[in-house]
């Protein structure tokens, strides 16, 4: 394809387990049959999109680091300018000793830039790794946060940075409605909220809608595990003028295949096509 337009779509949800990964992986797989597609798993705490692609080939694994400052005591005059100017209170200094609290540090470099004695230099801290795979024509990338690290947002940003250009970039968001989820939808063209018709799913869907409405212009809902309780979501959706783009039925067979890490929505190419066309239509 020579299509130069680039479309970024995030599959998100408030609740975990609604089927973000299921729908995102199948959608990306479907798109990749005809168009240049990348599937980007932004759930860096539990990346699992790649697991579905059993024929995947690992292309690259790279350690991601961030800058963490420290002080050269021989150059330092202990003037405390860095302590006063740090917006995150990450530095403590008493007499001629100092301590950095790296869990508070945002690697902004301010302390280094303002130090009158040029006494601050940067160390590297591992925050995790990014991994790239190829499965057929589909490019897959994910990140794995280092255990104990709180630099989720930084790692998500690193995962999102692609070296090649794709017609479709499909993001699998982390669950919830906090910073990692917001970061995963911060610069996309369209958000697909994957919703589950249960009281829990409905509750968390409303939270997700609140975030999505403030963050992106174009979004829609896909009901997964659809069945006799869809009304929980549908009456709310129609009351507020939102859009249910597509539904995927609940089936025990899907759950079984999912548990085995196998594709199970392959017979729904027509549904994937309709989601794709809806996105293209509104953009």
């Amino acid at each position, binding site marked *: 394809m020579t299509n130069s337009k680039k479309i970024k779509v995030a599959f998100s949800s408030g609740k975990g387990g609604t089927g973000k990964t299921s729908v995102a992986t199948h959608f990306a797989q479907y798109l990749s049959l005809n168009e240049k597609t990348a599937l980007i798993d932004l759930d860096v705490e539990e990346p699992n999109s790649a697991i579905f692609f059993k024929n995947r080939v690992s292309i690259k694994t790279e350690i991601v680091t961030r800058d963490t400052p420290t002080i050269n005591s021989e150059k330092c005059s202990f003037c405390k300018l860095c*302590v006063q100017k740090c*917006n*995150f*209170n*990450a*530095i*403590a*200094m*008493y007499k001629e000793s100092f*301590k950095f*609290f790296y869990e*508070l540090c945002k690697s902004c470099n301010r302390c280094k830039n303002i130090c009158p004695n040029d006494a601050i230099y940067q160390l590297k801290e591992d925050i995790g790794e990014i991994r790239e795979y190829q499965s057929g024509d589909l490019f897959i990338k994910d990140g794995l946060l280092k255990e104990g690290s709180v630099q989720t947002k930084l790692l998500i940003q690193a995962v999102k940075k692609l070296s090649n250009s794709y017609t479709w970039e499909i993001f699998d968001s982390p669950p919830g409605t906090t910073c990692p989820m917001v970061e995963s939808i911060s610069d996309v063209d369209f958000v697909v909220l994957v919703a589950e018709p249960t009281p829990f799913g409905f509750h968390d869907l409303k939270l997700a809608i609140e975030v999505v409405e403030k963050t992106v212009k174009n979004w829609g809902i896909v009901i997964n595990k659809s069945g006799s309780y869809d009304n929980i979501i549908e009456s709310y959706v129609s009351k507020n003028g939102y859009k249910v783009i597509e539904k995927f039925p609940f089936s025990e067979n899907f759950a079984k295949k999912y548990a085995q890490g196998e594709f199970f929505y392959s017979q729904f190419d027509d549904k994937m096509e309709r989601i794709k066309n809806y996105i293209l239509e509104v953009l």
Partner: protein
Amino acid sequence: MRIAIPSEDKILTASHFGRAPWFVFFETETKEYKYIDNSSHSDSSHGAGVNTASLMLESEVDTLISPILGPKATDLIKNSSIKVYKAPENSTVEEVLTLYFKNSLEIQF
């Protein structure tokens, strides 16, 4: 000797060390009280414990009677000569001092 106690309102003890709005300093030699405004630290969105702990070090506090210290404040104060006791919940500064002089406070570190 200087004893420091985090306080909500100069009378009641605070429920949190790093975010205590006030600190009461009691000087054992002169029996004097000093009230230190900690609001610039207690209101900060990040690292209140770091700044409040630094205030203790800079103010040359000898003894601190406080609710359980957070991990960052602990990190800074444990490496100093300050002795830290546990303040019982919902008590007044006066009550805490009385308990201290009766030797009936639990030691934090």
